[in-house]
């Protein structure tokens, strides 16, 4: 199987060569053979020895296209279809996935302190769209792209959750 490590953009391949028993396997990772022995395993977590070293991994997300896990305390995300991804990306015809989105989302929860744009305004990437307050701090939310403000989804004084759409920029 081929994977792309999103943290580093590295392409990796790995496979299970042999199952020695229900708990021991021979793997091939980046061309190198490794012995893996499962110590404990559930849906959420696996503890294992890889050659002679202990590791623990927690699975945070596993869907058809991506898997996110925490390996020995380090969070990593694999893209399961690195080739497919490339095709989709090419066909989208845009420079980056970010730019193609019209939704400006909040990456933090907070209370809306001020709204600094109006519908129809032409704005540039980095312009402040609104200011949120959370944990005693005021955080400016900036536009992720150049464009025009199509709609504003928030009101002053209202609370927003993480990932809520704040505005649409076209």
């Amino acid at each position, binding site marked *: 199987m081929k994977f792309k490590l999103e943290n580093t953009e590295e392409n990796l391949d790995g496979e299970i060569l042999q199952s020695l028993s229900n708990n021991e396997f021979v793997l091939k990772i980046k061309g190198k053979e490794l012995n893996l022995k499962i110590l404990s395993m559930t849906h959420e977590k696996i503890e294992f020895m890889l050659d002679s070293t202990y590791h623990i991994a927690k699975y945070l997300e596993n869907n058809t296209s991506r898997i996110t896990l925490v390996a020995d305390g380090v969070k990593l995300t694999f893209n399961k279809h690195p080739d497919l991804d490339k095709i989709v990306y090419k066909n989208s015809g845009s420079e980056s996935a970010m730019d193609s989105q019209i939704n400006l989302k909040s990456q933090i929860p907070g209370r809306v302190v001020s709204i600094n744009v109006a519908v129809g305004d032409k704005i540039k990437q980095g312009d402040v769209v609104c200011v949120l307050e*959370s944990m005693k701090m005021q955080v400016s939310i900036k536009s992720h792209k150049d464009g025009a403000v199509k709609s504003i989804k928030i009101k002053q004084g209202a609370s927003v959750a993480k990932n809520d759409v704040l505005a649409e920029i076209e």
Partner: protein
Amino acid sequence: MIKKILIANRGEIAIRVIKTCNALGIKSVAVYSDEDVNSKHVKMATESYHIGAASPSQSYLNMEKIVETAINSGADAIHPGYGFLSENADFADLCEKKKLNFIGPSGKSMRLCGDKMLCKAAMSKAQVPTVPGSPGIVEEVEKALDIANKIGYPVLLKSVFGGGGRGIRLVHNEKELRQAFELASGESKAAFGKSALFVEKFLPKIRHIEFQLARDKHGNAVHIFERECSIQRRHQKLIEMSPSPVVDQKTRDEIGQLAVNAAIAVDYENAGTAEFLRLDDGTFYFIEINARLQVEHPVTELVSGLDLVKLQIDIANGEPIPFKQKDLKVNGCAIECRINAEDTFLDFAPSTGKITDVDIPSGPGVRVDTYLYPGSSVSPYYDSLMAKLITWGQNFEESRQRMVLALSDFYIEGVETAIPLYKTILETQEFIKGDLSTDFLDRFKILDRLRDDLKNEASKKADVALAATLIHSEFLKNKITPRKEHSMRWKTQLDRH
């Protein structure tokens, strides 16, 4: 003698105070908002009372309700922690009026500490040097020019209506000052109806160094060494340590004495902190007194062996400080990292939510003050400090090594933290050499280094993660059944796969 203390706070500092109460056999009373029903301080206190809604103004800042709760529960003293009401002079006065022993300075002293202009005047009288500049508001440009000439360019022209970097102008000569004064004055008049500008010397590269103070009701005053708190983001401390790499015993004695003089100048009582700025040439300028127990007090505890909360309680009880300045010696080195719930790459924006898992480090020389437990929550209503990781070592290097290890062992799931940032900082040559300043993060492009470190770390763990991923795929296809736990029955032979 204090027998029962209400702690008018939450989070790790409430827990910290409860621990000392327990050790001293003093009963503790916790208060909590709607948001904190399941918080650890509520569970640890002798008694706990609900005081209002999540919003601080309706609970932890509600003076009347807190005082009423203290009286109803039979508490005879109030510990304010830090933040919330801890530096509120009216609250200190209210406690005094209601015959509750407020564990901190008097309202009068607190007011003096809180008013920058009054405080500066008191310091000037006590010959404690403050940042050079105008002693108060400057109405006319000629006066501003006089001061600038006296203290030397560059200077900062500031508006008392500003704050957080707004309304501040850096000027390098007379011409620039004239222009800036006119502009700023105009702006200020337009916005606030009057101009209120002052001039202060521009300090290009500074360290933040503070001295722990204690002063009892009998006038005995000591300093308990310095803390170097120069690693900051947005003027908030991230990493603190004691001793400072640039303070030798002579400097400690000298500036420590200034700090003690500052405490005397404002008739300060109980534990507090005198903050200073230090220039590269070794000049120290007093900036303010923090009239409360400081977040970073544990580094002082680890190098002095003192329990500062106990010291606070003893002083509030009217006892004399049980040691003299000469009895105090810095023992080893302690470092603290503030583990905030925030996203380093989102400009340190808050990150809140449920803590689905947490591993707290331990080991020789490691101390963790925290309210976290698996299943606990980080609330958006309160500040982002979840934990303080403090390590002690015989010297800076041992303390640093232990910190690096402890950071690696600290796992918090559910919110973003600055743990990776701290690992990067602690391993830089600049930090190791002690080349610290308040602009450390910018000066050494730490965030770029952090990005590299994170990539390297991910790259190193790629094999392990890939192995886990391959096995998980098999597991999901039901091709592997997890094996049972080892039986511990004496007679059972273990299988040997």
